[in-house]
């Protein structure tokens, strides 16, 4: 069935975007516009690859639990460092968020491509390209009964644990943001840090935690891409512009992770729809790849024209906060 296959691929394309956008939503809710997300996703991916590569090279036999755990922890550590760099520069040193974010993206993409290109040389082994099939197989363990459930199994049950984790993280984030005190405080920090500060909320701490947690979540998107989608094969620039697409998805989801679950599938579908349209030549495909961005612009314009209060970006997005400058 074509459409079942399409839907399955769309979900696979959507998962990295979902991770990235959930991470960015948490970050933006604290008022930090982190344009470093594309770089962070690269770092998350390559850190996992480095961990898995070293483990595969040094371990005699692959222990499936370790094979999943080591790359996962490396990925988390890598993205956490990126998040810390961003928060230290923008929150503690009050640097400009856009510049810091773009520098982080330059650095992160360079970091990913550099280690992707020279990892085997640096480790002193003769492998031509990094292919972590064994690790990837551990990551891609499917639910055992997926194959026996027909199209439903193919579309919804055939994915790996990281895919379901993405959905769970997004759903939990949505719950926390709108139904808990922590979420309320976080939103207050993003909307009006001065008021939040006066109410006794530690603005700096919220910004730090939101940015770092957001980075870690976004980094997992990079890990999912390498280990699941690309079958453990790292290719330089292979991740492409998905990081920016994740930022686009934040707008599309009007800063709500529960909407971005469905938005990510839609964006994933738009990203690959050109493969499913009969009679399209290569140049036409390139035009179709515009779709997610065009949809985002349209959406951005519509929400700004309607001025619906719930659909606006956090009021203090992109602005630094310094208590003495009120």
């Amino acid at each position, binding site marked *: 069935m074509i459409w079942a296959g399409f839907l399955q691929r769309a979900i696979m394309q959507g998962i990295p975007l979902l991770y990235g956008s959930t991470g960015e939503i948490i970050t933006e809710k604290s008022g930090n516009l982190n344009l470093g997300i594309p770089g962070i996703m690269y770092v998350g991916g390559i850190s996992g690859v480095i961990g898995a590569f070293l483990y595969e090279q040094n371990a005699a036999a692959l222990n499936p639990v370790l094979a999943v755990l080591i790359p996962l922890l490396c990925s988390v550590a890598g993205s956490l460092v990126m998040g810390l760099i961003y928060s230290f520069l923008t929150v503690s040193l009050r640097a400009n968020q856009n510049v810091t974010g*773009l520098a982080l993206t330059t650095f992160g993409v360079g970091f990913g491509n550099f280690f992707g290109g020279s990892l085997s040389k640096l480790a002193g082994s003769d492998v031509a390209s990094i292919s972590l099939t064994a690790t990837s197989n551990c990551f891609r363990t499917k639910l055992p009964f997926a194959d026996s459930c027909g199209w439903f199994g193919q579309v919804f049950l055939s994915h790996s644990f990281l895919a379901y984790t993405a959905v769970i993280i997004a759903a939990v984030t949505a719950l926390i943001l709108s139904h808990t005190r922590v979420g309320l405080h976080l939103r207050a920090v993003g909307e009006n840090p001065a008021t939040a500060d006066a109410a006794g909320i530690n603005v700096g701490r919220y910004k730090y935690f939101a940015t770092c947690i957001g980075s870690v979540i976004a980094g997992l998107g990079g890990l999912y891409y390498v280990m699941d989608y690309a079958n453990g094969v790292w290719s330089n620039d292979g991740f492409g512009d998905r990081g920016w697409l994740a930022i*686009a998805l934040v707008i599309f989801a009007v800063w709500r992770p529960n909407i971005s679950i469905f938005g990510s599938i839609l964006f994933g579908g738009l990203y690959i729809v050109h493969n499913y349209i009969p009679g399209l030549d290569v140049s036409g495909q390139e035009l179709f790849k515009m779709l997610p961005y065009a949809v985002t612009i349209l959406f951005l*314009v519509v929400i700004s024209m309607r001025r619906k209060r719930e659909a606006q970006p956090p009021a203090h997005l992109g602005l630094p906060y310094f208590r003495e400058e009120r």
Partner: protein
Amino acid sequence: MTQQPHKVREPLFRIAKRDTIVWWKAWCIRAAAIIIALIFSGIVSYLLTGENPLHIYATMLGGAFGTQRRIWGMLQNLAMLLCVSVAVTPAFKMRFWNIGAEGQVLIGGLASAACMILLGDKLPNAVLLIVILAASLLAGAVWAVIPAVFRAKWLTNETLFTLMMNYIAIQLVSFFVYKWSVPKGSGQVGVINRATHAGWMPVIGKYDYLLNILIVAVITLFMYIYLKYSKQGYEIAVVGESENTARYIGIPVKKVIIRTMLISGAICGLAGMLLVSGTDHTISRDTAAGRGFTAIMVSWLAKFNPIFMVLTSFLIAFLEKGATEVSTEFGLNESFSEIITGIIIFFIIGCEFFIQYTVKMREKEAAK
């Protein structure tokens, strides 16, 4: 109710805003940051390559200044980066976060390439060059003014809008690259008008890039004067400081936003022309090569001053060339330069804090 007086513990240090800082002190702080950053990236390079850091610095210098050819190559990179940086500056001074320079450069380049391909054999070269100039200026301006209009009229978030416009431009270029590709379906345009040189910018003497560099120098000077001495430049500064103040003293804010973005986009379009018609003589989705994003950092590092931008874009161009040389010499991936550039920018971004603020340590409690 009696309340115990709360014992407040003074934090170890506190941060206060500096009033002003002597200019040489500010530059000393920046120079120190760059030196620390260079030492730090030397350590990183040592860890990655195991080479003597001094040897690495020597290789970097050689990569940028080693031969006359390399110097010209670096000057060309510097000029292109400077051109885009100068282009985005008026918008930033207005606090309009135009991160769509990449797309505006690309669309300007696309317009030049289109004129070269479609009109190459129909017009005399001088007329063709004028048509190319007009087309690329217009294309860049249109690409920039769309987000500006929406920002002015409906307060649409310009950062996100211009960011998305980049990818529309990239896909549009991809589309035309496949349409025009030679041979068909190869996905590459190849050198346009290789035989006739129609639409190629003229070469001064035997220096391929001299004309580009001169044009960029003129634009930089123009922008410096425009921002510093013209009425429009003043209006930009006021809108950037506070839109409410600007409205109060009768500056038409919407008009200023749209006009400034027209100028910003047009110069980006011109950069696209310099790249396509003046340098590469071809077009691909990588023609802008990330300069649109790097330019934002260059412009910000120079405090939006076009003259300082010569220095900051020199720094970035030097790092790129030098680190590329290091990566070829030691057999590393060429992305090494992006890591080094990233590290140095982090340090410079961080050091701005020490220029604007002072850290005061906790004062000793007065003896009781």
